[in-house]
């Protein structure tokens, strides 16, 4: 664990450096061989060659989307784990991703939504509705919000939304091809416009997440202690929920429901910097970007020349880790 402030700050810069290097690798690695010189040329003298088009239209959007989606999911997970006092909380486990996906598929299948704006708002709505339902179900009863109840509620909603989504796809085969690859979680073949359209929302989410860290440290000591210290706890929770909806919903709109980043990364971040959310959140962002960039590069090679959905890779990394955390949680 990094104890000293200087180490923690150096870690941030090192993290940014690694993310940039991975983004660079993401641009030059893949089925089509691309050299560093090609990338520079594609910016300075674009000649319309196959390689330049791949760089500008595919590789660069892909690297940027992987970094933003990975960071967003990891931050959303860290905020959820902090607010619910639950090590298993994450956008995928609590049904937030499934809710957002359900609404997107609903819009595509039955209302013919094709616009980016439509996708975005459907994903936000779905994420918000799932978050509200899970929170209400999880805090019903006299003992209020408990980790076990909210986890069960989240798992139930995740299952419900996924089955409804699959049901819709079976009924409406026309939309199947359109959404199937997206549903497995993928950042390939996405337009840069999609990211640019969503960037304002993601930026608000990232910025709020950096501010809320200090207040989450207070809330982590329990509702009564936090209120006694003069915190308006409801407001902190609402801000937290807004961050989760913006970041998880936004990511689903770009990349589909990518699992396991939100649960795994905050634990890794805590391993580096301890429990202080002022550090856990930025570290989660950087580590999340690293994981998704790496998984996306991997997705190009595991079944080459075909591409695997990146969600499959994050699941392969995430499942063993999830079991490890769940077991540790039970033993404690």
């Amino acid at each position, binding site marked *: 664990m990094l104890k000293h402030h200087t180490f923690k700050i150096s870690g941030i810069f090192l993290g940014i450096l690694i993310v940039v290097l991975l983004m660079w690798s993401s641009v030059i690695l893949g089925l089509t061989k691309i050299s560093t010189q090609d990338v520079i040329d594609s910016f300075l003298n674009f000649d319309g060659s196959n390689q330049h088009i791949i760089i500008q239209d595919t590789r660069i959007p892909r690297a940027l989307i992987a970094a933003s989606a990975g960071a967003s999911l990891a931050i959303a997970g860290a905020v959820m784990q902090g607010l619910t006092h639950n090590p298993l909380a994450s956008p995928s486990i609590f049904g937030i991703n499934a809710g957002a996906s359900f609404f997107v598929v609903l819009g595509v299948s039955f209302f013919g939504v094709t616009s980016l704006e439509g996708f975005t708002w459907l994903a936000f709505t779905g994420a918000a509705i799932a978050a509200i339902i899970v929170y209400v179900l999880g805090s019903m009863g006299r003992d209020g919000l408990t980790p076990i109840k909210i986890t069960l509620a989240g798992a139930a909603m995740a299952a419900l939304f996924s089955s409804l989504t699959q049901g819709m796809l079976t009924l409406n085969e026309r939309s199947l091809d359109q959404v199937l690859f997206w549903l497995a979680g993928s950042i390939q073949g996405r337009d840069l416009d999609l990211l640019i359209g969503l960037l304002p929302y993601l930026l608000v989410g990232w910025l709020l997440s950096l501010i809320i860290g200090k207040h989450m440290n207070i809330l982590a*000591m329990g509702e*009564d202690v936090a*209120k*006694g210290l*003069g*915190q308006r706890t409801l407001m902190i929770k609402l801000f937290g929920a807004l961050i989760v909806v913006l970041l998880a919903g936004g990511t689903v709109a770009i990349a589909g429901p990518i699992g396991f980043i939100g649960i795994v990364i905050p634990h890794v971040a805590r391993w580096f910097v*301890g429990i202080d959310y002022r550090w856990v959140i930025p570290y989660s962002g950087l580590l999340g970007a690293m994981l998704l960039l790496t998984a996306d590069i991997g997705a190009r090679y595991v079944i080459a020349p075909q591409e695997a959905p990146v969600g499959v890779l994050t699941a392969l990394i995430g499942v063993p880790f999830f079991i490890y955390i769940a077991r540790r949680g039970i033993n404690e």
Partner: protein
Amino acid sequence: MDAITTNTLTLGYGEEDIIKELDLHIPKGEITVFIGSNGCGKSTLLKSLARLLKPKEGSIVLNGQDIAHTSTKKVAKDLAILPQSPVAPDGLTVLQLVKQGRYPYQNWFKQWTEEDEEAVNYAIRVTGTEDLIDRKVDSLSGGQRQRAWIAMTLAQDTDTILLDEPTTYLDMTHQIEILDLLHDLNEQENRTIIMVLHDLNLACRYADHIVAIHDKKVFQQGDPDTIITPQLIQSVFGLQCQVTCDPICGSPLCIPYSKGRHMKGVNKDEPTVNKQPI
């Protein structure tokens, strides 16, 4: 002068009332202890005084101001509460915990000041937690942990401190250690202390003012020397006892009737009041 007064205060969860139309005056600069049987609402009352629970009706006035109309941060600078058995997040150190007590004084522009540093150092010194500051809160013994939490509430630098059963789960030595600390804070710095205690005899030792709660109301309140009688214990707790005089402090000492291998030939039908030291 009152630290806190309540006006026709009614508290409860859902339909059920737990405290009904209570008018209470808590004296400033004294130690007040709430007593009563389990589930009588003394903890609920304490919580509501610290605005952790919204009253169904009535109001609570802290230093002349209605707390419902005062910003919660402002209240946090005048009144601190230590809930019953609070839990610190895994891995939090004692120093980190105590520093959190400065939360109400911080804002966007004022992050960490000399004043904050002083308040934290003071709180650590008074509670004798200097040697523990780098230890993790979850690794401490019960007594040490409670002192760390009290240090956090002291760092809040408030005139009034509320504590919900601060001696629960502590052995006798540590119970006395905590209560002595609170006594000194009251005696030397004139802080108003309001707490819930289960142990009647300790309550009688340390309290200037006892509030006995029964049947949604205050059954009786005042100086323990005058109000603690076998009749009060019988009515509030449904327990027969003798009240004698604490041989060390001279405060009332309640000795209950019970079963047990030594209980032979005691005539419990005639409760006696014996104020002479044994």
